[in-house]
């Protein structure tokens, strides 16, 4: 067929530099008219940056060319992207939970046509027509927020159709759907494809991917790894294309530790994680990895008392402990450095000194509850010295410190408490390579001193550099355990994204 060779989208030589980071470098992607095309890559490979360029949210660096059909488009804005027929369905759908289904579908048309008045009849007619085109039946006057996620997604697709979208971009569209809902979505995607609409589909779930796509493009670490027809690709080949970011960190020798400090047995929480069991040893760094949304953070927060589990038991030093709050956890000798240190780990408007003593206050007060200045100063000075925080000024407001130094303040805060168990969640997210290497060294030093550390990280090179043992989580379960000395990025990624299929192969 002639139209099969026609491209609805061509992006050439797309680069994007953020201050200090090259997020994308020389990416190409071409989507044919009427094809389902997958964009595949690890967490942080640059997929969402690329989508934001496509939808006009970000401007690419010089030298980029974007063609819609045969026309080159420059200075793309979000409004222009919509006008060119690009519909991006974000994971949150960007719908209005308080409006009716009909309104949600018709809203774009109303804005596009710059209407001053709304006609309810016209909105309902348009919504009914569009839903009929998708072949689904949804009550038009229902408030959207009361629909299931799957139905809300169909509403989002219907809305995209109202502005004659030529290319629908779907970001992880199956992540919250049941098997039968995925089937329905795929049926709809196929019928859209047959009517000439192209779909760019971002997903981690390789088994699903192969069921629906025509071609796929792989990016790794912001670079183009090629575009392949489905039939030329298999799981193993795809994974080897996706992973393999250069290891730029010092790789520490791995240790075997045998003295259990924390045992987690059958920990479960509906919708978060299921039947998680593992043991952490004294002096060990236990890496926990997996895709975003695999339940890692939820699981470690449960251990720290911030996310009450439905079932399961914890043992510290062989004794069962019941932890229902973060205070309990701290008392039991657990420290937690959260992923979002800005939100959860620091009081940003307060001084560095005040932040450093946040969890040790009890020990620094006299019997009347008043803070003893000498004790406080000692903790603060020790913290600043040990973590080499710069500038070494205890009065400095934390919000003015660099990201790496903020992270060190959070670590120092917990070290003053000398916990037996330290949980760090994505400790090097958003800081530069030099600062990352320092954090790695600090974590290793702490473990040498006997602390058991749980390191949650998406960054496989980081996990492989410092973790002695590695757990991979997938959809809320521990999918596999690896020895830090022998594991490879491919193995970890296969476990994280494939689950059952690769398990059969092994």
């Amino acid at each position, binding site marked *: 067929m002639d139209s099969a060779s026609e491209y609805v989208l061509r992006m050439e030589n797309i680069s994007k530099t953020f201050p200090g980071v090259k997020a994308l470098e020389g990416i190409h992607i071409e989507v044919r008219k009427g094809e389902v095309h997958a964009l595949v890559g690890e967490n942080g490979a640059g997929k969402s940056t690329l989508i934001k360029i496509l939808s006009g949210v970000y401007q690419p660096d010089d030298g980029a060319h974007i063609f819609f059909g045969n026309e080159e488009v420059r200075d793309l804005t*979000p*409004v222009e992207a*919509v006008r060119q027929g690009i519909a991006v369905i*974000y994971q*949150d*759908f*960007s*719908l*209005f*939970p*308080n*409006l*009716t289904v009909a*309104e949600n579908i018709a*809203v*774009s048309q*109303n*804005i*596009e046509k710059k*209407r*001053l*008045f*709304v006609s309810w009849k016209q909105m309902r007619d348009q919504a009914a027509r569009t839903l009929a085109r998708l072949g689904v039946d949804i009550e038009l*006057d*229902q*408030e959207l*927020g*009361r629909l*299931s*996620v*799957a139905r809300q997604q169909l509403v989002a697709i219907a809305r995209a159709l109202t502005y004659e979208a030529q290319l629908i971009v779907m970001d992880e569209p199956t992540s*919250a*759907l*049941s*098997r039968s*809902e*995925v089937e329905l979505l795929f049926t709809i995607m196929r019928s859209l494809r047959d009517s000439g609409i192209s779909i760019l589909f971002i997903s981690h779930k390789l088994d699903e991917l192969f069921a629906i796509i025509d071609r796929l493009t792989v990016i790794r670490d912001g670079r183009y790894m090629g575009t392949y027809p489905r039939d030329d690709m298999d799981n193993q080949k795809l994974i080897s294309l996706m992973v393999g970011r250069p290891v730029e960190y010092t790789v520490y020798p791995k240790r075997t530790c045998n003295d259990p400090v924390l045992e987690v047995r059958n920990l479960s929480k*509906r*919708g978060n994680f*299921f039947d998680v069991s593992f043991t952490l040893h004294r002096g060990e760094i236990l890496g926990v990895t997996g895709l975003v949304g695999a339940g890692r953070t939820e699981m470690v927060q449960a251990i720290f008392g911030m996310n009450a589990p439905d079932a399961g038991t914890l043992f510290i030093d062989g004794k069962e402990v019941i932890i229902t709050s973060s205070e309990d956890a701290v008392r039991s000798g657990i420290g937690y450095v959260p992923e979002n240190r800005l939100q959860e780990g620091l009081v940003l408007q307060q001084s560095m000194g005040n932040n450093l003593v946040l969890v040790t206050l009890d020990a620094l007060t006299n019997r009347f509850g008043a803070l003893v200045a000498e004790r406080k100063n000692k903790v603060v000075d020790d913290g600043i010295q040990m973590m080499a925080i710069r500038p070494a000024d205890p009065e400095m407001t934390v919000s003015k410190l660099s990201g790496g130094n903020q992270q060190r303040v959070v670590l120092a805060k917990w070290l003053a408490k000398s916990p037996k168990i330290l949980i760090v969640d994505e400790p090097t997210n958003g800081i530069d390579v030099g600062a990352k290497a320092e954090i790695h060294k600090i974590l290793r030093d702490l473990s040498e001193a006997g602390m058991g550390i749980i390191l949650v990280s998406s960054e496989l090179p980081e996990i492989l550099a410092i973790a002695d043992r590695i757990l991979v989580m997938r*959809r*809320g379960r521990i999918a596999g355990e690896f020895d830090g000395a022998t594991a490879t990025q491919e193995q970890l990624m296969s476990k994280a994204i494939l689950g059952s299929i690769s398990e059969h192969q092994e």
Partner: protein
Amino acid sequence: MMRRTGLLRSKELVIFLVLVAICGIVTIVNPVFIHPSNIMDIFLMNTVLAIMAFGMLVVILTGGIDVSVGAMVATVTMVVGNFMAHVTGNLFAVFLVGIGTGAILGFLNGLLIAKLRIHAIVVTLGTMSIIYGAMFYITGGEWVTQERIPQNFQQFGRTVFGHIPTVNGGATGLPIQFLFVLLAVAVTWALLRFTMFGRSVFAIGGSRISAERAGFRIDRTVILVYLFEGILVGTAGVVHTSIVRQVDPNAFNGFELQVIAAVVLGGASILGGSGSVLGTVLGVALIAVLNNGLILMRVSSYWQQIIIGLVIILAVSMDIIQKRRTEQRQTRVDVETAEGIQ
């Protein structure tokens, strides 16, 4: 045809039933309550509250709030009173000046909230203080007494329709001020229901990010919302002056709470995105009946404040609890489907 979701309908039904129950209790204790002249009295005494509440409804629907409306309406009455005392009592001119004053103040609020992107409660707390300060500085806080209000305007204020005998032998009727309430109801309802402005109000209140991505012009809507409220506050200021026929700059101290309370009691979510004109009508009626009923039942006016405060907390917490429940239900559905894949 206007269609609503079950939740909204039931919310308003609940408010209506509470209203009926309170009316019943008050009537049993003091039958004067349902005397037509008392009803007309309730209408008259709450016109200002009602007109302002519809403006506040639109503000709250966007997820905003305006605590400066008390200061605004006080200023409008002072401007209008002095205008009549010094310039003219011409009705058209008086309304123009009153509405114009309210509109300017509302527009400034909207501009600050939209452009500075500071939360509305902070901005309007600031403007409340500024407006009161400026008003007292300029006027010296002097009353405009009744003899300085032109006769024609006093006459206008006394106009009633129909003939209803009062309990003590006089006669009254449907006050002319009530027409402004009907007008405010009609305009607010039509704006919210049939214009894109109205839909953008709901859209912003429902999800600001989605509204931005969909291409709604958020700044413009926010400014228009506070401007609309200012216009209604201006109208309310003139209406108030026509009722009391004198101007006391302190008459509206704390009035913003009554206005916000009426909207919230009427089922509007303080978080934005849900609420209705019908609900606000019922909310105003509830406050009106509570105020009047507690007087007729000879309950101390201090108790009135306590009771209204309790009712507000009850109404808001029910709203928040319900929202949390819905969210929980939603996550549970997601979980079940996610587990279904396993």
